[in-house]
């Protein structure tokens, strides 16, 4: 065993103290007919060999592409200080701060995370992390049901499809979810259809606990959040805003437009994409919801000598105390990622955060021009921050062929929104501060070449294409 300390003598000494001759005696309580068959796994790999093996597996992934893929997970620059601090064993090899006297580091960092997120969201109560944006959104929706004692939630079809799927799974057993469609045409195309929301809220027999909408939405567009909030509140429902934290440097915070709960994915705050996680579920709420919010909360207090100190608090919401009446079953959370986000924010500061958001907008505008020049135009008229959808005939095939040219051309929308009419030919693309003008030019040229090639085979001329 590679990490065990025991020598043969050590084991013999322990066995002798117990008065037994073999460790097998300690397993005599497993009934004979229930003893395991042999564990058939590949033989142990010494670290030297294992490190080569792991590096080879990592190298089988292609991360050399010029990537315009976002769709809920965004590439951002992280100062090396962030990961170097995270690599301290005092952070990552500790656990839940059950013993506050020797966990003040974790506790203060969580309190600071809560404070940072409260600033960003404009909502005062922030839980110290959920699994990811999707489960945080589901928990937010459950909060609205507990608070209003109603059993139906409305979610915008322009919320991330994985979040909606998660919400359905969490609600499936006992609560209802209805989707608010997007406007199909006009200036509001691709954003929540307010008239449809009003109709859904008007069903008096099925009162609504909460309305869930995202800002920016999954297609990168802005929703009329204050109006959605007003409609929700007028129907006695709560309003859940799904947010992207970097954008909050420049977009109105949920607390300002009347959201009762904000949920979102914290990954953009310096957390690597790493194929899906670990990420950071953000969950923030108004004071009125402090006893409904699930997950850990850290509060400021003093010790017996009057020194400032931090401690987990309001724990009667949690599963270890409340059992079947807890606000959620969450136990292990994403504390290390909350720490990562805090260090990232502290390192780049408010000006850095604004610059990151603004660079995304800048590069995305450049991307829009380059793609238009290649013949791919936006699908929606509304403004966007750093992500938008363009129409590309036969988007999935073009996307595949662009991979061979070293371009990861965003996300073909048909793959994730198969039932949404008008998006079949859509590619969702994004830019961040890491997107370079050279990458944008390469994408434009490659797309132009692809569209020209398919036009030549079908005898069509790509709309708006110009020769370069």
């Amino acid at each position, binding site marked *: 065993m590679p990490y065990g300390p025991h020598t043969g003598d050590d*084991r013999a000494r322990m066995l002798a103290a117990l008065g037994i001759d073999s460790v097998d005696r*300690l*397993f005599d309580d*497993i009934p004979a007919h*229930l003893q395991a068959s042999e*564990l058939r796994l*590949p033989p142990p790999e010494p670290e030297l060999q294992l490190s080569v093996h792991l590096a080879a*597996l990592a190298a089988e*992934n292609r*991360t050399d592409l010029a990537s315009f893929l976002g769709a809920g997970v965004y590439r951002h620059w992280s100062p090396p200080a962030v990961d170097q601090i995270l690599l301290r*064993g*005092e952070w*990552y*090899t500790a*656990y839940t701060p059950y013993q506050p006297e*020797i966990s*003040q580091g974790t506790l*203060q960092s969580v*309190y600071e995370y809560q404070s*940072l997120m*409260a600033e960003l969201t404009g909502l*005062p109560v*922030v839980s110290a992390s959920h*699994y990811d944006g999707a489960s945080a959104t589901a928990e937010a929706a459950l909060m609205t049901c507990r608070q209003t004692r109603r059993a139906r939630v409305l979610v915008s079809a322009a919320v*991330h499809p994985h979040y909606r*799927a*998660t919400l359905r799974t969490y609600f*499936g*057993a006992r609560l209802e979810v209805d989707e608010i469609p997007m406007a199909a045409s006009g200036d509001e195309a691709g954003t929540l259809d307010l008239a449809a929301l009003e109709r859904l809220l008007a069903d008096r027999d099925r009162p609504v606990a909460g309305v869930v909408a995202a800002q920016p939405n999954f297609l990168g567009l802005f929703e009329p959040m204050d109006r959605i909030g007003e409609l929700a509140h007028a129907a006695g429902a709560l309003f859940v805003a799904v947010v992207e934290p970097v954008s909050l440097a420049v*977009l*109105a*915070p949920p607390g300002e437009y009347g959201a009762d709960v904000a949920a979102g994915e914290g990954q953009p705050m310096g957390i*690597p994409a*790493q194929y*899906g996680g670990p990420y950071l579920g953000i969950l923030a709420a108004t004071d009125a919801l402090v006893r409904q919010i699930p997950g850990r*909360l*850290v*509060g400021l*207090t*003093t*010790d*017996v000598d009057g020194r400032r*100190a931090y401690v987990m*608090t*309001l724990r009667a919401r*949690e599963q*270890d105390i*409340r*059992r*079947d009446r807890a606000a959620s079953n*969450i136990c*292990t959370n*994403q*504390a290390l990622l909350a720490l990562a986000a805090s260090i990232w924010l*502290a390192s*780049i500061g408010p*000006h*850095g955060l604004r*610059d990151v958001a603004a660079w995304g907008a*800048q590069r995305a505008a450049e991307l829009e021009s380059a793609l238009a020049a290649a013949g791919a135009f936006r699908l929606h008229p509304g403004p966007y921050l750093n992500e938008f959808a363009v129409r590309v005939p036969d988007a999935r095939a073009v996307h595949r062929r662009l991979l061979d040219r070293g371009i990861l051309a965003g996300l073909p929308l048909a793959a994730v929104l198969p039932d949404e009419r008008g998006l079949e030919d859509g590619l969702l693309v994004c830019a961040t501060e890491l997107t370079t003008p050279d990458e944008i030019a390469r994408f434009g040229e490659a797309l132009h070449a692809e569209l020209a090639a398919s036009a030549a085979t079908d005898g069509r001329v790509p709309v708006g294409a110009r020769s370069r």
Partner: protein
Amino acid sequence: MGVVGERLQPSLFERSRPGRGDGKIPHPPQDALDRLPGPARRREPPALPELNEPEVVRHYVNLSQLNYAVDTGFYPLGSCTMKFNPKLNEWAARLAGFAALHPLAPDAVAQGTLRLLWELEGALAEIGGMRAVTLQPAAGAQGELTGILMIRAYHHAGGDTDRTDVLVPDSSHGTNPATATMAGLRTVTVPSAPDGGVDVDAFRAALGPRTAAVMITNPSTLGLFEERIGELLDAVHAAGALAYMDGANLNAILGRFKPGEAGFDVMHFNVHKTFSTPHGGGGPGAGPVGVGERLVPYLPEPRVLREADGSFRLERAGERATSIGRLRSFVGNTGVLVRAYAYIRAHGGTGLREVSDDAVLAANYLKHRLRDAYDLPYDRACKHEFVASAASIRRRTGIRTLDIAKRLIDHGFHPPTIYFPLIVEEGMLIEPTETESVETLDAFADALIAIAAEAQSEPQRVRDAPRHAPVRRLDETTAARQPNLRWRPSAGGVMPCPD
């Protein structure tokens, strides 16, 4: 001497000075945001702290030193398996090929990770004796929800919609009943037998046509193997219910007991316990779920599939109509799973069995060492952890388990889990793990024995503990009565800034 650093830190907000720390990121053109529509804009920039890098580093390094951690000392927190976290695994998860991979990248781009995940599923299925595994759940509790939702879907598919009860023993972890509620089911708590095991007769009496599932932790939260598990599983299945195994305590039985072979229908793994992925000050973890044949159709999506040509792909949304759906975004906590994979490969089957052998040997040895000083309410061979109790000490001296835990801090140790499971009076759940040396186990036993003596001779010293920690016992009542959950400038006035 304190076991952790002593330098309390002012908050990030108090360290902030306007104008500090700018300049890491070039400024974009002035008009970059001009196209943002007015109503969507933020009027006031967020009041985030402004610091320069040296201060940020010092802040967080000093804060880190206020933490006790596995890397600094013995951390026998029962039920949490605080074993050593190999450094190779941290390195591996940070390899650019793993770390920079976007979760929606096309399968063709992600073959290395997909292969790793597919092999990990296979390894976990073999360890659990299960037919298939999903890696999606983000932690044990989410694994429980996954399992119970699958059980519910299974009953519903059979037209059996009246099964609303989930039976759990009273020693179960809080996540078990909380999970039942989240799944829309009702918890029925069954008392344990006097020997700490499941009371099979009580379970038989509670089982019936309304029982959807029984959730059992084996070894139990008392660190005991459920010797009557075979009988119990027969009774569960005879009642038409399914059996869930909470696998949090798998570290005791690797290669000795495969839940699936024994008849469990579904189980979760806590990779942040058994397979040594770090606990991260509260998380992240991952909670893969293994299922037997009956529940395979209901596994969450997406599964990782292997094609005939040997390549790998993710299942598409809606590809399997029977799936319970998604529990979260994307495929799972992949970065955590890379570490778990590395751990399993480093050990192989023989190594994993040795892990359990040594974990169980260490726990029994430590229990033996404490025999004269503490009550051992369940005094038989334990598995990887055991419960000791200070009930007699309390009766004799008034000193409680909480006091003993705090005094352990002065002796340089992280306390065990205390007052869990709830059914043990003045209980402490002690889990040494297999990566602690005999010298460490002896030193910890000596400290606990010394504290038991102090409880008699110098009780005030125990009550006043900890003395050698950056802060002493906290005012938790005020924290709960007047919650202060975020920094406001005025809060600094109330409590002096530490420096």
